[in-house]
């Protein structure tokens, strides 16, 4: 059961962090980052399964696969930006956290541009 591993890793990290947070703040950040990366790598095989199933459903639903890929990319961008923001927040770098968030939002909008264009085209073509 991966969840036990993950929770164990999380609890161990929390214990270590609570010990090191006051004296070694820089080490604490590295530990939390490595813990999140570790958890992420444990999760990856599951994610690939989920994405395969999603692609199958998307094929059946007749959605253009480009859209599905875009949505998955956007979700990934959201997660990565979220990771960066939280780590920055943990390190008390609100400024950088805000910038990462902004970058994440802009990249999400940038990725969604083809979808927006397609939708606008569709709506315009409906009008007589």
């Amino acid at each position, binding site marked *: 059961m991966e969840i036990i591993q993950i929770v164990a890793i999380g609890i161990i990290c929390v214990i270590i962090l609570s010990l090191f947070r006051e004296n070694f703040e820089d080490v604490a950040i590295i530990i939390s980052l490595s813990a999140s990366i570790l958890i992420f790598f444990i999760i990856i095989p599951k994610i690939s399964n*989920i994405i395969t199933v*999603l692609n199958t*459903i*998307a094929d*059946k*639903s*007749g*959605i253009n696969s480009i*859209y*599905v890929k*875009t*949505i998955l990319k*956007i*979700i990934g961008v*959201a*997660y990565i*930006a*979220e990771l960066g*923001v939280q780590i920055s927040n943990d390190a008390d770098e609100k400024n950088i956290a805000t910038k990462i*968030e902004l970058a*994440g*939002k802009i990249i*999400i*909008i940038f*990725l*969604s541009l083809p*979808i*927006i264009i*397609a*939708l606008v085209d*569709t*709506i315009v*073509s*409906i009008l007589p």
Partner: protein
Amino acid sequence: MNFLDEVKSWIIQIAYISILAIIFELLIPSSSMKKYVKVVIGLTIMIAIINPVLGFIKSGININNALEKEYNYNNVDISGMTKQAEMERNKLIVDEYKKRLNDQIKERILSMVNASDVEVESSIVDDLNDKSFGLVKEIKITIFNDKNESSNNSGNISIEVSKANEKTSEIDNIKNDLSKFYNVPLKNITIEER
């Protein structure tokens, strides 16, 4: 049927899309990014749902064409049926006309000669659209006079000869009469005696 299949596939697509949307929304991280990702997912779902409708609207003329085709097809069918019915009716009219003509000729001959039975077969112009419809082309008459013959047999031979002469003159009479009455050339009237 085609139309129904299209609607069916569209509904199935919408079902799949809604499932996909729910899964995507589960995948979204619960943060300030959530609303952005949700908007994009919503746009995609909109496109996916609108696209088949768009195909519908764009091929609206096609649908009309298909409908017209169907109606035309029905019309053609109906007109074909009416044509057939008309043909049958015309045939009936011609048949009835022939029958009555034959009856009339029969009555006419029976009034002129003393015969037990008369069979009349006439050929006429049987095209209703023809101007000369009903024109009698040929008449074949078979006169049965067994009764006369049986009575004749009991009589004299000399009388029979005179009767034969009488009969030829009778036949000529009938021919002339029919020829005048129905405007048929004499050569087209054949009378046979039995």
